[in-house]
């Protein structure tokens, strides 16, 4: 509808709207700073308040922590992206586990029904976290597809404590999403939830019913 385009733009341009642009005073965002330990604390508090669960791990043992969790929970299948470094370590660690690793390495159309109906959990990495409100930052893509963190009823996410940002605003700037945004980027604070029935909170309405963060304490001096 190029006619519509031209007509709309002409109307907007003919409004005579203009004048100096108001300044953007971002001081209120800039002054939010926390120490590394406080960032971890804030993130945990924020996410736990919306039912996110946490597993504690060290850089060297997170695959074992994850395996123990899967087996404790009796997960039958764990979907993951095989091409990441974390994926490689997962493959090693899960050898012989009753929880079967299922690589997400083919177009979704080839296994959509299986994805919706018989995958117990999905594992993803993250590209960071947001301390202020508590949230994970994800860049789904070829190596970790978009639905990995959405369709399985349990989402397991790997979060090194060294990757936490103070705010969403500082994260967007640090990750360069404003320059070269990935096709999809996400901030996730907890499992899927709703309160559309009488304002009563219920979890797991469409997406994951549980979000479990494997918090990898990779900062010097932080407790494992």
């Amino acid at each position, binding site marked *: *509808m190029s006619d*519509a*385009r031209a007509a*709309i*733009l002409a*109307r*907007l341009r003919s*409004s005579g709207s*203009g004048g100096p*642009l*108001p300044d*953007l005073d971002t001081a*209120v*965002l800039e002054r939010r700073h926390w120490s590394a330990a406080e960032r971890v604390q804030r993130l945990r508090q*924020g996410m736990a308040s*919306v039912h996110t669960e946490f597993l504690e791990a060290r850089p060297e043992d997170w695959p074992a922590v994850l395996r123990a969790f899967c087996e404790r929970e009796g997960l039958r299948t764990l979907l993951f992206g095989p091409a990441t470094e974390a994926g490689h370590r997962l493959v090693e660690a899960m050898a012989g586990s009753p929880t079967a690793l299922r690589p*997400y390495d083919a177009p*979704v159309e080839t296994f959509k029904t299986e994805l919706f109906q018989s995958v117990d959990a999905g594992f993803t990495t993250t590209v960071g976290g*947001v301390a*202020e*409100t*508590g*949230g994970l930052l994800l860049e789904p*893509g*070829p190596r970790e*597809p*978009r*639905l990995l963190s*959405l369709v399985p009823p349990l989402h397991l996410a790997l979060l090194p404590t060294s990757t936490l940002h103070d*705010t*969403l*605003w500082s994260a*967007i*700037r640090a990750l360069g*999403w*404003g*320059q070269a*945004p990935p*096709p*999809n980027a*996400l*901030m*996730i*604070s*907890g499992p*899927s939830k*709703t*309160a*559309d*029935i*009488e*304002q*009563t*909170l*219920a979890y*797991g*309405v*469409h*997406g*994951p019913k549980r979000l479990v963060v494997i918090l990898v304490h990779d900062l010097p001096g932080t407790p494992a």
Partner: protein
Amino acid sequence: MHGETDMNEGGPSGRFAPSASPLVHPHGVTERSPATPSDPSFRASATRALGDAQLRANFRRAMDGLMAKRAAQFPDPGDLQALRDLGTAVRARSLLRLPELLEQLEASCARNGIRVHWAETCDQANAIVLGLLKAKGATRVVKGKSMVSEEMHLNAFLEAHGIESLESDLGEYIIQLDHETPSHIIMPAIHKNKGQIARQFSQKIKDATYTEDVDELTALARKVLRQKFLEADAGLSGVNFAVAETGTLCLVENEGNGRMSTHVPPLHIAVMGLEKVVARLEDVAPLYALLTRSATGQPATTYLNLISGPRAKDEMDGPREVHLVILDNGRSRIYGDPQLQATLRCIRCGACMNHCPVYTRVGGHAYEAVYPGPIGTILTPQMEGVGRRHDLIHGSSLCGACSEVCPVEIPIPDILVRLRREATHADAGSKVAGKGTGQTMTEDLAWRAWAAVLKRPRLYRLSAWFATRFRGLIPGGMPLLKAWTMSRTTPLPAPRSLQERIRKGGLPHV
């Protein structure tokens, strides 16, 4: 949640009965306004709603909870004001550069593989959506929450063309089952209680048994809707913010149905009002902070979903095609007025309705409009015509609770006053839809007479003399007094006016 968001994440639960009060509202709830049947009548609908004690209790409880939750998110008034100033500046800058940003958005989207379509009217927008669906042979559509699609009456349009258009936001799903419209822009089913939803699910969902357990009801919907996501040929969504520089569509939600609708089906169509654009991705951060806190008192929603393209060549999932439909529907006309342009700053958080004493009492359906509450009272008349929605423009006590909490500082009372003027005066140069069509000779004459008296102190003095001397004789049946006395006694002037006392006795002395 949503304006284009589903952020509803609840508040204090538990049922609540209307309080037993010594002050039972005395007015007759059967009173109807004299509007003609073809015109929407806020007064008539509001009056019906006021008679529904359960509805009033539901809204009061929900709004009380939402106000408390919002307040808890803004403990520091200085930070709140700084954030509002920033949010307002972001939106105001975006509007000042609107035509340029829309073109930039289109180019950035194109670069990302998102195709942009323009629609001046809802009919055009519907036709575009239908065309895209038909081109793919799509017959099953799942929808994320979108108020713009409500403006378009898209569901009805698609159903009429043989396409299933299923709302997947839980609240929207609930009201769609009953062929209702949203009563709140963030919490569409807020007017319904658990019992009603339980009955509805047991009757309308196959194999469902009756339960009032919210987790079980939610699980029921999950089961139905996940199958729908799996089978859908296309997903439709709104847009909370569109970023011009990066060609990014931002969706804010709690449920995940927005991500399901935009990432599972092979085709994603997003619809947005043309005002939704911002310049840079980092501009989204303060708006998001304001949106989630103002709407439902959440520091963040479950998901902030930034979509900057369809499935890339090496990706395993995501839609093959993403389209963005930019809708005008009267917005460019609103844009043309420097004062009214502030209407377009709105980020659809719903805080104005949560804090509105009128909305709280009558609920969203009474407004007979897509957008209820304070923002609706300024937006709807500008879209539909100020004369046609004259009762809506006056459906406010101008108390200012809305503008006090508005995260982007829209001066709603000032705009209402301006629209009241537009409705009754056809000013040359005004671009307001329906200007002057609410004019009546009665009101014109009344205000002229009012001014004629009050600009002449002697006439005022004479009127005051009569009012005080004959104060007991004011006829209760006078038109305005009749309305006043529906709930109140007749106001009784003092035996002598202040001015008369001072004239006769001089100023008091201490």
